[in-house]
């Protein structure tokens, strides 16, 4: 177990390293001059030159990268124009918003987390539940309704569903306020009423995919010998379906869920744009628009960390769900 964990974490670290190098090269080496994008207004050549010096753009790429990485692990000293000392998870200084990138992230990450975590709980419960039920009642009206639901959901687009939800619930029925983010700890009621449409839209589209996948998996498992054996030796339906079959059927669902949740935590650009919420995704888009390289770099890195971590968690979950999986 420990050996597996160490090996898995090492390979995750290797992937993250590659992602960081790649995105560093892509963003800092590819553009003709990364600085022009960074001071949009009143940029005279002296100021440009100073920014270049402060960012260390005159140094070789390797030492630039090393400095960036060192900043994340131990923090580093930036120039006085960049707010001086930058503490441990130092992601650099944004000339566009004039603040440390880690402060920006600390502000917008909770928004994305508040969108994704409740939505993920909803879509997993709804999707897997519906898929399992329709597999157990194959051919019934419930099954047909579930198939129709998942086909529709798999072909719908989030921005369209979001727009329709906004038209109906906000502008016509006036049941809900225009979506906005309030901290959960300040006002839980406002938090949920401001985000509920985003949860519903995300959960609707994702649960369609999960319903389809878990139905197919469950049908395949139900036709396996061990399910028949379990029924034949007199186990109750409930225990056979709920424990034996579910565990075997749910493994691929967990894989996809890990990828999806990990990916969504890095930023739900479309959801945030549709509902006008300012989370990680919006921040990334705005950073790209204004050429704010340190912020782009930070959002890509954080998104990659979420995906890679989610994959590690999925691998560990396998062992819990499926006793056939031997780690090591």
């Amino acid at each position: 177990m420990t050996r597996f964990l160490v090996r898995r974490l090492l390979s995750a670290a290797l992937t993250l390293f590659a992602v960081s190098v790649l995105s560093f090269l892509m963003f800092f080496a590819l553009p003709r001059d990364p600085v022009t994008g960074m001071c949009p207004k009143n940029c005279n050549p002296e100021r440009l030159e100073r920014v270049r010096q402060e960012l260390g753009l005159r140094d070789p790429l390797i030492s630039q990268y090393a400095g960036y990485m060192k900043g994340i692990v131990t923090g580093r000293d930036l120039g006085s124009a960049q707010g001086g000392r930058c503490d441990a998870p130092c992601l650099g200084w944004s000339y566009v918003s004039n603040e440390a990138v880690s402060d920006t992230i600390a502000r917008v990450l909770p928004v994305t987390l508040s969108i994704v975590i409740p939505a993920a709980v909803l879509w997993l419960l709804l999707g897997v539940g519906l898929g399992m039920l329709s597999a157990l009642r194959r051919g019934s009206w419930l099954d047909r309704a579930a198939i129709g639901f998942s086909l529709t959901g798999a072909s719908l687009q989030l921005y369209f569903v979001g727009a329709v939800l906004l038209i109906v619930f906000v502008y016509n029925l006036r049941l809900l306020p225009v979506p906005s983010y309030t901290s959960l700890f300040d006002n839980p009621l406002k938090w949920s009423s401001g985000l509920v449409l985003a949860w519903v839209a995300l959960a609707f589209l994702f649960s369609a995919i999960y319903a389809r996948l878990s139905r197919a998996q469950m049908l395949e498992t139900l036709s396996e010998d061990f399910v028949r054996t379990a029924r034949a030796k007199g186990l109750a339906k409930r225990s056979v379906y709920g424990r034996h079959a579910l565990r075997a059927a749910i493994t691929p669902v967990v894989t996809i869920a890990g990828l999806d949740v990990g990916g969504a935590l890095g930023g739900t650009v479309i959801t945030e744009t549709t509902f006008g919420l300012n989370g990680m995704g919006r921040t990334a888009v705005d950073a790209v628009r204004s050429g704010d390289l340190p912020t782009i770099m930070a959002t890509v890195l954080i998104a990659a960390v979420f995906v890679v971590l989610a994959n590690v968690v999925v691998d560990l979950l396998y062992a819990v769900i499926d006793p056939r999986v031997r780690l090591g």
Partner: protein
Amino acid sequence: MSLSPVEGVALAEIESPGEGDERRDKEFVGRSPGQLALARLRRDRTAMISGALLVFFVLVALAVPLIQALYGVGPKEQFQSRLDGYGMPLGYAGGVTGEHWFGLEPGLGRDIFIRMVHGLRTSLFIAFAAAVLTAVIGVTLGTLAGYLGGWLDSVINWITDLTLAMPFLIIALALMPTVALRFYGQREAVPAYFQIGVLIAIFALFGWTSTARLVRGQIIALREREFVEAARASGAGLGHMLFRQLLPNVWAPILVAFSLAVPQYITSEAALSFIGVGLTDETPSFGRMIYRSLDYLQTDPSYVFFPGITIFALVLAFNLFGDALRDALDPKSSR
């Protein structure tokens, strides 16, 4: 899901109308797996309906100049006289009239129908081009990785994992302007064909891994089969092994993957244009239209519905057809 490993024909009964006296004339004819699949597809009502819808969409996309000539309105013409003082189209449902079938855009007053027809063409072109490219790259690398194994296999596997860890939207978002900046200046307008080319390239760059993984899995399953061993023993070269022995057995899943990749690229293109990379406002595109319509949800709700429903119908038709194709190509399915 592999087809019969023996190149050649599977035996199947002729479909008899079911009359008693004709049953004696029952005859066996040879049919290739492809013919069987086609026959199954013809009998599937969902496949036929969604297929017809797809043919319709493709025809519309191909006939854009003709439609524009008949319709008499260009995608960039503005009809300001039909908007009220606030820039809202006059009349019901966003200004739907005999001349403007789907109404006008609020603000600029451009015709929605003709812009959607143009958008459909761009969208389908990008999706098909990207799907063909990913299929070619994915099949080549997947086959090589699966058949040769070794370091090539490990490298391709690792690249697949890596692309999965990269947040696609954000990378595409960051790459688009960077690439454009490399070829065009800060102030220069980037031509539409260049944006379309970059979009296709980005999709191909990120999309080939899933096809490669699929093909690799199939090839590995086939690699140790007797007929492959026999071919190798009789001295077949690499090209013969790949193209004559292995690939004919995996074309079914490749075809299904292709047909399901197209709608994926349609939605990705719309999504990228929606968040403002990808195509700019000059080029008509579904994503861009929906993004613009978000500002008018309260005042002109019908604006979002035309592009929204069209893209839904397009993607649904592709998904249904892809599923039907999968069923038809599966030799185990009895439908």
